[in-house]
């Protein structure tokens, strides 16, 4: 199985130094994924690999041979926005927009984790079913910084789509 990006097969770079982030932006010209710190500290480069969120700046592209990468360019359904994209617009979940692709990919990965019952640092009872309140959400999204401070809108947008009763933990992924 080859590496795919948003469903399309992509050849691996010849030089193993090429990060997944650089492959996306420089080779594939998918510039939706942003580069911030380039050291794992900001989340701007977050993408989904087989549905799990990772930071693409600390990933060597060659490590991801055979995996399915999804970027912000791949989450809408044709002309129909992903519900989170619509919610970010509705709730002013951004100012400059630089962190937004990473925030949205990260939130999609977070929802899958919630669906699997993944606890977080602020979860009181590690055995209980998690309810995504604002505290849980802020902790789970702490890997994505926003320098504009659009956090209130970001939290509102994500809660709108994945908040209590929105993610069925028994059924989801």
């Amino acid at each position, binding site marked *: 199985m080859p590496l795919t990006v948003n469903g399309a097969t992509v050849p691996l770079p010849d030089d193993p*130094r090429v990060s997944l982030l650089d492959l996306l932006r420089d080779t594939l010209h998918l510039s939706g994924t942003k580069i911030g710190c380039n050291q*794992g500290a900001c*989340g701007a480069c977050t993408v989904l690999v087989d549905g799990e969120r990772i930071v693409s700046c600390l990933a*060597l592209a060659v*490590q991801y041979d055979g995996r399915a990468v999804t970027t912000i360019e791949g989450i809408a359904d044709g002309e129909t926005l992903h519900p989170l994209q619509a919610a970010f617009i509705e709730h002013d979940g951004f100012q400059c927009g630089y962190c937004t692709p990473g925030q949205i990919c990260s939130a999609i990965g977070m929802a899958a984790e919630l669906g699997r019952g*993944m606890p977080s*640092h602020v979860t009181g009872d*590690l*055995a209980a079913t998690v309810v995504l309140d604002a505290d849980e959400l802020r902790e789970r999204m702490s890997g*994505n910084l926003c320098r504009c401070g659009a956090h209130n809108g970001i939290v509102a947008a994500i809660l709108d789509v994945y908040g209590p009763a929105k993610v069925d933990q028994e059924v989801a992924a």
Partner: protein
Amino acid sequence: MTPFAFTRAAATDEALRLAAAPAARYLGGGTNLVDLMRETVERPATLVDVTALSTAIEPEDGGLRIGAGVRNAALAAHPAVRRDYPVLARALLAGASAQIRNMATVGGNLLQRTRCTYFYDVEGSRCNKRVPGAGCDARDGFNRIHAILGASQACVATHPSDMAVALAALDATVHCTTAQGTRTLPLVDLHRLPGDHPEIETVLEPGELITHVTLPALPDGTRSTYRKVRDRASYAFALVSVGAALRVEDGRIADVRLALGGVAHRPWRATQAEAALRGLPATRASFEAAAAAELAAAVPLRDNGFKIELARRTITAVLAELSGVDA
């Protein structure tokens, strides 16, 4: 980044063979090694991706066997870890970000290198760990995040892992392999104190592969937890952390295992405090005295004296929480 060859091992013997190449290094998630390579702190000639090896979490001898390739997120989410080893689940969940926990492996987490900023600063700083004999700019520099226990004239760095602190408290065993055979090590013996050779961080031989970690069962009635104190509420390394497992019987401390993070060059098993606690009544006074016993040997640097008081209070608070004594 210096050029390197990328290889991938499908089996342990293949990994050992590939790692026999000059300047070869194993690659887990890459979240520490790729960063250090980009900064040219690390310059391996060959990487051997070992993430396909030992990715299972299985019950063993009443305890747990954890493959070195298990991702940090998967370990934290595992039902047996959440139920039987909350200290480990909580330590993992307190580390890094969700994205990084999805990438990071158990083997890589154990062998991640210090976050001393001078260590990272290839162009501008002297560092004995990076260049043996060069000097240590942290010792008289900005050393707020540095060690208070077990440091040396040559190096005052700390080990940054949260997971390793929990594993130290849990009496974990590390299983390793070389071409010569396999061996096991108590986790608390894996990392070295810096001494005169801070560049040698563990007792592993070059090319030695960590295959898995095992945890013994905790006695019935043991409670465990992890508390991490940091500069912000999430996504920051520990200033001080405490991993503890405690069993109280008839109001007395029947069993206690205590380890500290953010204070030393290795996860610090607090044996002095443990010895002071066994058999004592589970009271605040006992906990405070034990913390003081452990920290008697602490030596502050210019900027990190606060860690001694912080460690004292955090140890006391964690033991109080586990024993149900009013904190």
